[in-house]
């Protein structure tokens, strides 16, 4: 059985090796740059909105495997979702990576990141792309993990 505490699972390694939606979007509705000073992770997230729905989302940049895989999974999951659904997914993801959600929930792409809960400093790597997406959706152009609080 898969050890849910193992961080570098196949899913994460695969998304790191072959990131999905790794491109810029010309004429995106919102674009933001996210920076994590711990690892030096730096990503741009591009998003196009159609009404209340995310029509297209993509990212580019460089950083550690956790941040890159998380960005890739995120773009994969939120495409076609409403803003409300996206917010809900982010909340769910935050619960998973900070350990507020149990380890026995449904396995899924988000749950693959559960192992970072043992490494509070790496939680920022996992949530960087999500914070950056949130910034892009709110019309901000940049964010850093210093500004975001993922755990009390």
């Amino acid at each position, binding site marked *: 059985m898969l050890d849910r505490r*193992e*961080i*570098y699972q196949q899913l994460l*390694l695969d998304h*790191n*090796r072959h990131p999905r939606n790794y491109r810029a979007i010309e004429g995106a509705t919102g674009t933001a740059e996210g920076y994590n000073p*711990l*690892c*030096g992770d730096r990503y741009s997230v591009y998003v196009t909105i159609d009404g209340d729905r995310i029509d297209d989302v993509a990212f580019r940049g460089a*950083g*550690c*495997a*956790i941040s890159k895989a998380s960005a890739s999974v995120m773009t994969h999951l939120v495409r076609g979702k409403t803003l409300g659904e996206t917010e809900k997914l982010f909340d769910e993801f935050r619960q998973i990576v900070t350990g507020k959600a149990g380890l026995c929930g449904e396995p899924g792409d988000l749950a693959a990141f559960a192992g970072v809960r043992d*490494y509070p400093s*790496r939680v920022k*790597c996992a949530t960087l792309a999500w914070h950056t997406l949130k910034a892009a959706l709110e019309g901000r152009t940049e964010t850093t993990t210093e500004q975001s609080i993922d755990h009390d």
Partner: protein
Amino acid sequence: MSLPTVSTEKSAAAINEDRPTPFDVKSVRADFPILNQEAAGKSLVYLDNAATTQKPQSVIDYLNRYYALQNSNIHRGVYRLSEAATEAYEGARHKIQRFINAADHREIVFTRGTTESINLVAETFGKMRVGQGDEVVVTELEHHSNIVPWYLLCREQGAVLRHAPIDDRGDVDLDALEGLITDRTRLIAIAHVSNSLGTVVPIRNVVDIAHGKEVPVVIDGAQALPHLPVDVQDLGCDFYAFSGHKVFGPTGIGALYGRYDLLKEMPPYQGGGSMIQKVTFDEITFADPPTRFEAGTPDIAGAIGFGVAIDYLNALDLEGAFNHEHDLLDYAARTLDEIDGLRIIGTAEHKAGVLSFDLGDIHPHDIGTILDQESIAIRTGHHCAQPVMAHYDIPATARASFAFYNTREDIDRLALGVRKVLDLFR
């Protein structure tokens, strides 16, 4: 055992060449309780000694005993507990003096650590000597704690901060350093051993160059004291900053060595209790060094604990310990160099205690987290030496750093862990 007083540069080479009787690492490890614990069924491989070293049982026991049986404030107490604490605190100063072979115990100022020691020099000696248009020289090799205080000083005084470059092996370009010295140079600040690359800087040569032009030299000795015999008189430096926790003592305590004639002319660092001779609202006269620079209640237990750590080192076969460590560094370099895809960063001829490397595109933080799951503790990041990272055009390195209680098995486990990282990312 008596303190080895051989010069640092020579001894580093000598340690390399002749190998005396093997050092009894097994019995030394038994003195460090943290090394004898397991996590997830794996024994701890602690290779982050450049960040902080582990503490021997004697230091741990001492801290307990002090707070249980001896705690009291030092100086001016006329009861026996306070007299005993004062005596032990001042005794620690003498131990440190002898350990680095300072000429006088009054040349040892207790601080919170290397960082505060350097800040102390910048705030006092620096402000006294560095003025508008003057110059301070550091190097590209420095830890941020030997850059930022000088940057702040220069900004405040309207002075210019210059830096000597390193070459691609990680050695400071001494010719360039000499070339930077002008008639406006008021001070040179330089590391004895690099925390990010392990380079041993030939401090005596630096001091010769600097003193030839009447420029005083401040040494960041944080990474040298755990790995090399340090003799401040032989080095000839004017200031030498170091930390207790990097030489098996408690955190929160360190010291500054300063030549007495220089300390004597320096203004106070912080104001408060202890550092005065007489206080009225019209006039204050300050105490002589080192008391002048020790305002307020110091970390008494920490200072005495620092002394206990030095007792521990003095009771060791220290030369054997340093030889063993050097052998480890050689072995680690050879072992890791055999791994395809691994690049060693910093290849100076004289190195001590530190081995930095990277694995191409694999982020060092990923290396660090995966190794942690194998119960191997290394440090990953820029090591508070961003100019060094910029020199090599990398964001970070993975750094294994050694102490005399490490073993070849530790390095074999590290190599195995690194191969696992490479396999995962392949």
